[in-house]
């Protein structure tokens, strides 16, 4: 994202809306985007309604009010002059939008958001089957963001365990080699709001996976959201819970439930 300095009146509304706190006021009193930190999520552009005022008019009104020692409290969800300007994104910067802008569809997976399906369609895809655990490790969430060099550290640690990375996942598709978890060199310095490493393994390997994650978490300069999924037993029991608890963790009381209403239902046998 860029801010047109000819239009910006320095109201600061975009500063708070920015998901990465990457917008600040420059010495000239106009807002500017830190391009290294901007993840191209487009949130500022979508949320702040363009009021379409001419910059000179807004500045004049402010000057008059200020000379009368009066203030004007603008609405918080507007850009008075439409100064926010989306830019043309070339590779590899375009990856930022692909991973951070929920309205962008990943070309490799056909899914928007972070580009992953996990168990949301498990009733028809059979992605996670009986006896298996779906493991999702989201680097950068909540709200901190991540560089792919951090994503790579976690992916390589997971690869050492020999887990199977989900092929229909945008992080897997950036790997040079799925056996090592190595990510393509040219994207390592790109920053995104978050990226999800998605894999599966036998349920009994959950403790091993969590122990490895415990080791690598200290090596990344961001946060990680961890999730575990499995196909329920015929009586509705959640098979992964016992394995998670055995490792000393408590799964959240809330979570995602696939009701099994999709058709054609995937049959394992």
């Amino acid at each position: 994202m860029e801010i047109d300095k000819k239009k910006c009146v320095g109201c600061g509304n975009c500063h708070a809306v920015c998901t990465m706190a990457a917008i600040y006021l420059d010495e000239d009193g106009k807002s500017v985007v830190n391009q290294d930190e901007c993840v191209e999520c487009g949130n500022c552009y979508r949320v702040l309604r363009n009021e379409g005022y001419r910059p000179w008019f807004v500045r004049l009104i402010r000057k008059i009010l200020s000379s009368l020692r009066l203030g004007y409290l603008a609405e918080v969800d507007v850009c008075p002059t439409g100064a926010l300007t989306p830019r043309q994104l070339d590779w590899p910067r375009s990856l930022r939008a692909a991973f951070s802008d929920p309205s962008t569809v990943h070309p490799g997976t056909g899914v928007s958001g972070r580009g992953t399906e996990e168990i949301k369609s498990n009733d028809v895809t059979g992605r996670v089957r009986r006896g298996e655990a779906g493991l999702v490790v989201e680097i950068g969430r909540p709200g901190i963001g991540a560089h792919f060099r951090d994503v790579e550290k976690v992916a390589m640690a997971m690869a050492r365990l020999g887990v199977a990375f989900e092929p229909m996942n945008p992080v897997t598709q950036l790997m040079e080699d799925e056996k090592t978890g190595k990510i393509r060199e040219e994207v390592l310095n790109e920053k995104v709001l978050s990226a999800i490493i998605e894999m599966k393994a036998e349920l009994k390997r959950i403790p091993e996976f969590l122990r490895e994650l415990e080791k690598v978490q200290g090596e990344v300069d961001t946060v990680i959201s961890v999730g575990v999924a499995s196909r329920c037993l015929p009586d509705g029991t959640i098979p992964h819970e016992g394995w998670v608890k055995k490792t000393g963790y408590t799964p959240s009381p809330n979570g995602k439930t696939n009701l099994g209403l999709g058709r054609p239902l995937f049959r394992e046998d």
Partner: protein
Amino acid sequence: MTNTLHRQGTIENLRNDYVIFAYTAKGINREGSAPKLREFLKICLKHHPVNIGNSRQGNIHQDDIDIEQLILNQGDGEGAMAVFTDLDTLRKVVEELIQADLGISINISGLLKEVNECCQKAGIQRHSVEQSLGFWGARDRLPEREILMFHTMCGHGMVSFNLIRKMIEYVKLRRLTPGEASKIMAKCCECGAFNPLRAEMLLEKVRKGERETR
């Protein structure tokens, strides 16, 4: 996306937070899914959700979004979602969806025990479950728990920590009501997973200086 997986809160305030979403799978039932997704949205709308939308078109709290038009414009796609705040309504929605037999995957994010009971009352057995194991890594970079309760209602992270702080401040200063502030936050969440009613209740508590306890 794990959009609705890591919602933070107390058991008490999570009781007002159920996200139901339809999902299609590419190459299996996505193609030709438009009428099914429209029907899903219509069924949800009938039961007055506090939020509804999809990531392609936005949600009802955004400027210039007309829900009837959003439904009409719903094409083949990965899905749509709606947010409800009580189990009775959720159960009615589930029962209607079973009746409609849309053939697309239906998921619910919320308290698992309650959702399971809802499924059983509706006569179905849950298929798969995903749970959060919390936040790892550099947790010292995270803000306080109250901020995270708001932030995680949009799993794509579109409701920034700074906006939440600003909204709390504005509510405390009575520049905005909790309802107005929660609507501004809901605008940011593109797909409609944000629960503005729960946010309003949380803001009301913050305004009074009450703390959420587990």
